[in-house]
């Protein structure tokens, strides 16, 4: 893990309320693995005070992109960063996604902005030609659906679910898991999910029913990001674990909801 200066290459709104920022930062980009994250200091005043965590959305050489939703003061400040601006970045942090031995079929389930780290995961997985990757994207509505073209451009079979049915099926992303793995061997299949907490819970239940191994990327407030403050604890069957050190990716069946 390193603290490094990153230079904003571009930063634009890709969907209403969602921004894509490209940052040149070789020391951190070169070390990043899918599912890991970084923290960025948003501005240099005491408001917001703490750094904000973001996943690696895509990594190319010495640069990475983050895809982020403007929610509060930190992301708002970030959204006003202009090309050329220098950011203070700490990363990569956490353990990221690991692909268990013997898993051939991979299903990625993304809810809302949860898609951000999964694009990087999909790209990495595709490097192994023997693997079969498919994606389910869920969103509030068609307007806020993210990354569909990206996955399809990579040749990945992509199912879509929206809350209002304005795009794809009118259901939750997790409801499509059965359809997505139909015909696949449960024991050779693994699910990766990222999204709001209720979605992760639904994914855990669906995976359990279908008897497939499943991992999810979790969120908590992050302060230090290095395992020092013990602030990002999350409850698991083997006690409290730290999002920033032991996670953010955990086996779903390990979690206590």
């Amino acid at each position: 893990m390193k603290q490094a200066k990153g230079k904003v290459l571009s930063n634009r709104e890709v969907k209403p309320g969602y921004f894509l920022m490209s940052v040149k930062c070789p020391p951190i980009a070169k070390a990043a693995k899918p599912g890991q994250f970084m923290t960025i200091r948003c501005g240099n005043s005491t408001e917001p005070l703490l750094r904000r965590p973001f996943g690696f959305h895509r990594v190319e050489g010495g640069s990475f992109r983050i895809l982020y939703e403007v929610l509060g003061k930190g992301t708002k400040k970030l959204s006003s960063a202009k090309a050329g601006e220098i950011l203070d970045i700490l990363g990569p942090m956490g353990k990221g996604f690991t692909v268990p031995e013997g898993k051939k079929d991979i299903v990625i389930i993304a809810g809302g902005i949860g898609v951000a780290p999964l694009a990087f995961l999909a790209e990495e997985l595709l490097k192994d030609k023997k693997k079969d990757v498919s994606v389910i994207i869920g969103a509030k509505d068609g307007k806020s659906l993210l990354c569909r073209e990206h996955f399809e451009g990579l040749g990945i079979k992509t199912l879509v679910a929206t809350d209002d049915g304005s795009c794809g099926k009118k259901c939750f992303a997790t409801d499509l898991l059965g359809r997505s793995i139909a015909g696949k061997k449960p024991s050779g299949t693994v699910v990766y999910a990222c999204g709001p907490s209720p979605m992760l819970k639904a994914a855990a239940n669906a995976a359990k029913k279908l008897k497939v191994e499943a991992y999810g990327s979790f969120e908590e407030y992050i302060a230090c990001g290095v395992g020092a403050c013990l602030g990002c604890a999350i409850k698991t069957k083997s006690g409290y674990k730290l999002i920033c050190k032991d996670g953010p990716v955990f086996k779903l069946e390990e979690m206590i909801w």
Partner: protein
Amino acid sequence: MVKPSLKVMIGGLELKNPVMVASGTFGSGEEYKGLVDLDKLGAIVTKSVTLKAREGNPPPRMVETPSGMLNSIGIQNDGVDAFIKDKMPFLSKLRTAVVVSIAGHCIEDYARLAAKLDKVKRADAIEINISCPNVKGGLEFSREPGSAADVVRAVRKATRKPVITKLSPNVKDISEIALAAQEAGTDAVSLVNTFTGMAIDIDSRTPVLGNIVGGLSGPAIKPIALRMVWETARRVKVPVIGMGGIMDCSDALEFIIAGAAAVQIGTANFVDPSTAAGIIGGMEKYMRGRKINDIKELTGCLKT
């Protein structure tokens, strides 16, 4: 010009500079290895340890507030024996002072913790975190001069190492508690620990923190912490270690001018792990610019 001297003495402990990192915000140092040049720090104060392992409070354990943060970690730790076995080997190799923070639920706890650490060579000093509820009685030890002094006395008896007593700001007159700790034999006092605070989610109408209340730290508390350090330093003879919201060199110097012999950096480590290093450099620059050769000349030099 000669290089200004940043050395300070805390009881019998010499620090190469007055910039320490605060308990609970820097783990046991190892977490920041590679990110921070640990040997440059004045001292590392480790996360408070208890006699037995503690799993800590239910999440969420933190939330940001205006220019501050609330935490309710609940002194999660593996217990002092595991600390000595697992963390001390790394700490022992550092060329910076190692201050081990201890916390207990009765006087006995503190005495036994101190006795165990007394035998650990590189536990260079002990900081007593008295902001813990006393299981007999409920109130924190830090809230009354009497109970604070009891803890200090017990620790003092159990060890010859320098003892620093860390005071809580949730009191009527912190300098009174400091005086009691001084009389009970502490070598120094450090202040402030966090202010008890809370935050509420108005949608669910529940507390944001799993523990309902938590400790407020960060720049928000700096004006109060600074006043408390000033009040305390005027009344006690032992060195005062100041902290609370220090973000940069200017903040650190305010504490020193108010009367602190050294400072601790807490929340700022999260905001920027290079904060302590930046402050050390900034102090040298400030002193050079003003032809001050020894940082000790600055301690308590406030003109009122």
